[in-house]
Structures are given as C-alpha cells and as structure tokens.
C-alpha cells in the first residue's frame, strides 16, 4: 500500500496570528498594518516598528505578490511526502519587505522563477487556512 501524504504540520494559533492563519476562510490574506502610520507589520506583532504605535490590526491585502526566491525540493523528508514541490518566499505587492513562506502550486516546478507574479489561494487543514500561491493568470 502506498503511504498517504502526511498532513501539513500546523502552527499554534494565538490572538496575534489568528487573523493571518484563518483569513482564508473568507478568501482573504490578512496582514497586520499600523492604524497610525499605515506601515505593514509581519509576522503579526502588536507593535509598529516604524512609529512605535500599538494600534496594529490585520487588514486584507490584494493577495498578489512576487516570488522573491524559491527552491524545488526533491528529497522526501518524511514517508509519503509528494515530491518535487516548490518552497518559496513571496513578497506581497503592497510591501516587498513582507515575506510569506509558501508552496507554489498550479505550475510545473521547473517553470517557477524569481520575480514571477503570483496570487494567493488557501488550503484548509483543521481550522487553519494555509496560504499557498499560484501564478497569476495571463
């Protein structure tokens, strides 16, 4: 019998990161943003490093971004892990310093490239909506 793919390991949620990891339930990529100076803050943290405000809350962003860097993983690190797969860092269009680790899906791994435009989609595992990215259509 073929081993089944292992479930994605999940993050421990708390009040700081809940919006980021569950925003996908409404199809939204939620990134913390300062209510005073409007700087983005990631990973979710109740402090704005730009203006020292504590008035930081998650807001939906466009869900679009670019691939900052990536790797095509070929090694099966655990039984059943589907390989190859692409691990990437994606920078969001609203702020290129906000980096989201992710898997790139919907494209042959060998066609993935740095700077490729991508958009978010979500995969639900338990109560977590894991942000994944795929190439922007057209």
């Amino acid at each position: 019998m073929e081993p089944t793919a292992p479930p994605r390991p999940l993050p421990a949620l708390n009040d700081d990161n809940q919006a980021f990891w569950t925003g996908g339930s409404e199809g939204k990529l939620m990134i913390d943003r300062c209510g005073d100076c409007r700087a983005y803050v990631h990973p979710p943290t109740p402090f704005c490093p730009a203006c020292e405000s504590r008035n930081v809350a998650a807001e939906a962003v466009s869900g679009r971004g670019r691939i900052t860097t990536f790797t095509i993983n070929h090694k099966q690190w655990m039984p059943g892990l589907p390989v190859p797969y692409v691990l990437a860092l994606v920078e969001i269009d609203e702020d290129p310093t906000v980096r989201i680790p992710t898997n790139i899906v919907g494209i042959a791994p060998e066609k993935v490239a740095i700077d490729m435009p991508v958009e978010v989609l979500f995969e639900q595992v338990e109560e977590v909506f894991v942000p994944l990215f795929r190439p922007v259509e057209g």
Partner: protein
Amino acid sequence: MAHYGEKKVAVTGVGMSDISRNATKTPMALTIDACMQAIEDAGLKRSDIDGLSSYPGADNNASGFSPIGAPQLQDALRLKVNWFSGGGEVPGQLGAVFNAIGAIAAGYCRHVLVFRTVYEASARKMSKQANALFDGGRAHGQLMNFAPYWAMTASVQQALYFQRFAHDYGLKPETTGRIAINNRRNASLNPAAIYRKPITLDDYFASEIIATPLRLFDCDVPCDGSVAVVLSHIDAARDCRNPILRVEAVGSAQKVRYSWDQISGEALARQATISSSAMMWERTDLKPSDVDIAQLYDGFTYHTAAWLSSAGFCKPGEENDFVGDGSRIALEGDLPINTGGGQLSLGRMHAYGQLHEAATQLWRRGGDRQVQKDLTVSINTTAGGPLSGCMMLVRE
C-alpha cells in the same frame, strides 16, 4: 585597539573525540574525550577550569542535535566554576565562544572550557524522522511560518538563500563544486575526517539534487562527535603549554532581522554575514590581506562562497573568479580554506571542528595537511539561518 576585551583572551588547548557516522561511544563519553584532551592540551588540570560554555544547550530529545549540555558536563567532571552558559540564542554557532570571551574579559573566569557535542548520525539511524527543528505537534515560534510547507530542515530553508545568492551574484555551480572538492582533498589528508575519498567536478554534478540549487555534495555531513576548546585570560595563557593564540577580534553583530523568512535586500542572500564581518574588521588593524588561513563555514558550500566576499577577500560577485580552479583556496594557495576538510567532509561539528582546525594549523600540528607557509592570522566564520558570527586568531 587594545581596549577591546577579546584581545585579553587566548585559545590555550583543543580536543576532539572520534568523529564518525557510527559512534561506538555514548555522547557523554565523546564529550569527556574531547574535554579532557583540551584541558590536558592546555597544560591544565580539571581544577583549573573555572568556567564552562556550550552551544546550543542540551535539547533533551532524541534528535542528536545537542545531547549534552553544560550542567551534565559540569557534574560529570565535577567542575567548580565561577560562571557557566549554554544556549542556542547566540550570534551563530561560535556564540558559546563569544560568551566565554566575555566572561573572561569581565573577570568572572580565567580558564573557560567550551564544548560542542553532536550525535545526529546515530540519532537518525534510530529514527528516520529525527529532526533538530521539529518534533511533531503544532509548530511554535518562528518555525511556525515554515512548518505548513514541509520546510522543517535547514537544507530546504537554506536552499532559498542559496538560490537568491546565485541569482544576485551569479554564483556558478562550478564554484561551489570547487569548494566541495577542496574540502574533500583536505579531508583526504586528515585522518580524523569522515569522508576522505577525493571527488571531482563530475562527481559533484552527479550528486543527488536535494533542493535546487543544493546538491548532496553541497551539504555537510551529520555526525557523532565532540570538540572542546579551552579559552584563557591572556595572562594565564602565558603559563600554559602552547604558544599564545590570541583572540584578535570578534564579529557578533546581528543588524538584519532575526527571521528566517523576513530578511530582505542584500541580507536575503548574505544574512548577517555583512554585519558580523564589519564588526570584526572594526575591532582590528589587520586587513583581509593579512589573513593566512580561513575556516569559512560550510554547512552548505554557498556559505563558504558568501563568506569569501562578506569577509572582504573579494568583492561580491567575484566569488567565481576568486575560487577559479581551486588553486587559490588549496593548502598551497594564497588563502587555504577549510584545511581540515570542513563540515562537508570532516563532519558537521557546527564550527567547532573548524575552530579546532584553526588552532591545529596555527600550532603546526596539521601533519600531512599542514599549510607550509608561515601562519600567524586565521579567521573562523559561521552562518546558517539569518545568523552569523566570526572571529580572528593571531599567533603571537
């Protein structure tokens, strides 16, 4: 420059257990071998040791990443110390050395025993999933950002930086290949190394792709072993057995975001190597051209390439030309690198094998791999994740 505290500190003794893929001794036995050897090498007794420092602290799990911590060793050797420290939240793997230097400069201690023990090779034989970063359950802390993407090993995460470095600076696989070949050649002359059969560029290109652009021969070797180093106040060091190896400068600065995923700009490719290197050079009158040998971190080959430019041996983007056909970084070259085989071939002793090697070369105990030219100045560097650190030794 004399006011910098690290200049009051010297390496006085080193020790190394058997390094292997299949230890016949327990982690504690390996640690005792390394530590007792280092104490004896310095011409000291256990009762002279008044400080103890280790990286990254006992993890008390079955991963083999760090089976022995400072408390266990202190008790085993019945050391009576004024100060001790063990932990992983430090500027790179040499952080335990930087801590010890601080303790000596502050006057807490005169002779600090520093050690690093790993048992990863044996741990992986017992459990295929032995993982230093993740043991199942929900992911906490910074790891949570990577965990859902099956990125719980350093190789996959570091491949992201490797890719970006190659993209930004044009690093060629021939160059990382030459680094691997050089380390293996040095290991072939080092009886302590795990992998000693020389390799060619063809072997390098034929090695399995782990995570692009990372090949198997770009990766260091998980192993079982222990390394110990005695650091002493310079005044006390003059009464020790070996010629003085003074710490000339330390680079511990972390001025980029301490995050595996949020580092950006130049740091995405180079992590904190720029800020730690800058700090080291600010604390010495010496220049890169004064360095006789370099033990440049090689958790992955690209770390070594990045350090060539981060440490100032060449400009960013000139790594391919600097390494060339490998002759410049060979034992006979202008800048011999990773003279003992490095982590790629000796085994992943997390910078401590290379610190042992720096002292071995400066004391001219290198046997078949001894660099023949005069040796006075040596640097050691570390990397991995967003972290880095570096230090310089000068033989007086």
